[in-house]
């Protein structure tokens, strides 16, 4: 018994030390964002600046078109989330709840595409969108999400598999079509899994850098990720402003995470479990 509590205390001490180590960069980011230039470049680190320079936040946000970039990012995020949800649920149903010859072969083919490096398809896709005249618009960033993302389909399929088959059988007895079962029974029961997929799609679009880098050239169409990197180029060395901007871009994701923590962690666990 005594041994147990002792190892428990040791465990807590290790965990607290590690937590501090993992949190220190965040603290440094926020702390720097509240300093003026003199306070930034001191010999020893001042964790809580005095006085606190809140004005860095408006200064950082006013020194680049933050609201425009935010609006662009949100437009792409909303489009992508819609596309991903629509195009992941249907195939997931086809893979999880229908029995047909060739299904498993198709499924393994889809799983294999998860391993495909983006670079192998990226250049011809760029050329296709370019010949369609879509470069310089958000279409190349949104439209592909309407064609079924393998990771999302896999995640939803795993969830659909856990819903008892008897529900579908009973509905079939009552003459319900497969579409009806999908739309009226499976989807309403799958809200948590759909939320996970939506969340991942949102996060992916929010942080995507290479996509907008390739397709968006006009400054008025920059996303936050691109805008932030050009901000870095122009304000290199002004760490207080840079950290304020980085904090602003990070906070929405941390808030989203706290609201949907369970959804999040379960989703990651599912995608990681079955390789």
């Amino acid at each position, binding site marked *: 018994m005594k041994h147990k509590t002792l190892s428990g205390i040791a465990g807590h001490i*290790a*965990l607290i030390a590690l937590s501090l180590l993992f949190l220190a960069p965040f603290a440094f980011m926020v702390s720097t964002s509240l300093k003026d230039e003199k306070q930034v470049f001191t010999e020893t680190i001042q964790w809580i600046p005095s006085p606190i320079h809140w004005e860095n936040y408006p200064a950082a946000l006013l020194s680049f078109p933050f609201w425009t970039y935010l609006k662009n990012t949100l437009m792409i995020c909303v489009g992508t989330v819609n596309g991903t949800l629509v195009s992941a649920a249907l195939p997931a149903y086809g893979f999880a709840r229908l029995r047909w010859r060739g299904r498993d072969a198709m499924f393994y083919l889809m799983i294999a595409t998860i391993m495909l*490096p983006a670079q192998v398809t990226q250049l011809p896709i760029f050329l296709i969108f370019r010949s369609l005249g879509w470069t310089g618009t958000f279409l190349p960033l949104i439209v592909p999400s309407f064609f*079924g993302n393998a990771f999302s389909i896999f995640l939803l399929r795993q969830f659909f598999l856990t819903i008892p088959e008897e529900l579908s059988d009973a509905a079939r007895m009552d003459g319900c079509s497969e579409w009806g079962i999908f739309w009226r029974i499976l989807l309403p029961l799958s809200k948590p899994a759909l939320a996970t997929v939506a969340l991942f799609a949102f996060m992916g679009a929010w942080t995507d850098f290479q996509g907008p880098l390739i397709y968006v050239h006009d400054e008025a169409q920059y996303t936050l990720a691109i805008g932030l990197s050009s901000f870095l180029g122009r304000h290199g060395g002004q760490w207080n402003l840079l950290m304020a*901007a980085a904090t602003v871009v990070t906070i929405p994701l941390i808030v989203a995470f706290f609201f949907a923590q369970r959804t999040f962690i379960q989703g990651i666990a599912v995608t990681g479990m079955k390789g």
Partner: protein
Amino acid sequence: MRTNSRKTFLSREQRLGLWFISPWLIGFVLLTLYPILATLYLSFTDYRVLSPPRWVGWANYRELLLDTENFWPSLGNTVFFFLELPLALILGLALALLLNQKLRGMTIYRTLFYLPSIVPVVANAMLWLWLLNPEHGLVNTGLRAVYIPAPAWLASPLWAKPALIVMDLWAVGGSMVIYLAALQGVPTSLYEAADLDGANAFQKLVSVTLPAISPVIFFNLIMGVIGTFQYFTQTFVMTKGGPDKATLFYALYLYQNAFQYFRMGAACAMAWLLFLVTLAATFLVFKTSAGWVYYEGER
């Protein structure tokens, strides 16, 4: 006529199944299969986007394999970066094991360790440029406080890659969560049996825990290999491949070929080489895994 022959060719179930998966299937043909083949074709051409592609045979591949200026360094840097995989495995697993002890407040610690992995890539890059600042950054201030020599990190050809590895390890929470879920799925009966045999904690780790979660380790390893080959945004934002090409990674050089030098043919050749290497790496990990991956239900 046509619809008739299709009807006999595909059963009702198959048509229904294909209808349901059609969003993915159409996407697969248009955005995966066709581009892979187009990449292969373009890799044998000289293509500078503005004029139509011109067939040049193996020239792109030959030039790449003889290119000791950029291609081989980019491959070498990428291979060096594989060092991160065992480190991330050990750290991620160690954190997961610590969290799996049914201590009070486990979910709080899990959240804290996980948070770094949701920081947007560009914000993360900016943060670490500052953390790794040789003069005033947190890392070197900390090192100097305990009298460890502080390297110039991203400004030093020797330390730039280790700096990026340290930065990546901060976000190890993503794989930690996966390991943790796997650990919680290990049947307690296995541990009870090991207890009966008088196994100590270390023996239980080696002969029960690790075999039981080996499929997950295996999955993370494959995704790690593939992810390393695609490592791009951090170097693009932070170092642009420097100093002295120390962080010129494969994906970065590929991007530069395609979108900065407009050598689409060469970029496509690099993409296909990447495809082959990925296939080979995945195959190799699969092959060797037979000896150490244990799947439940497998006899």
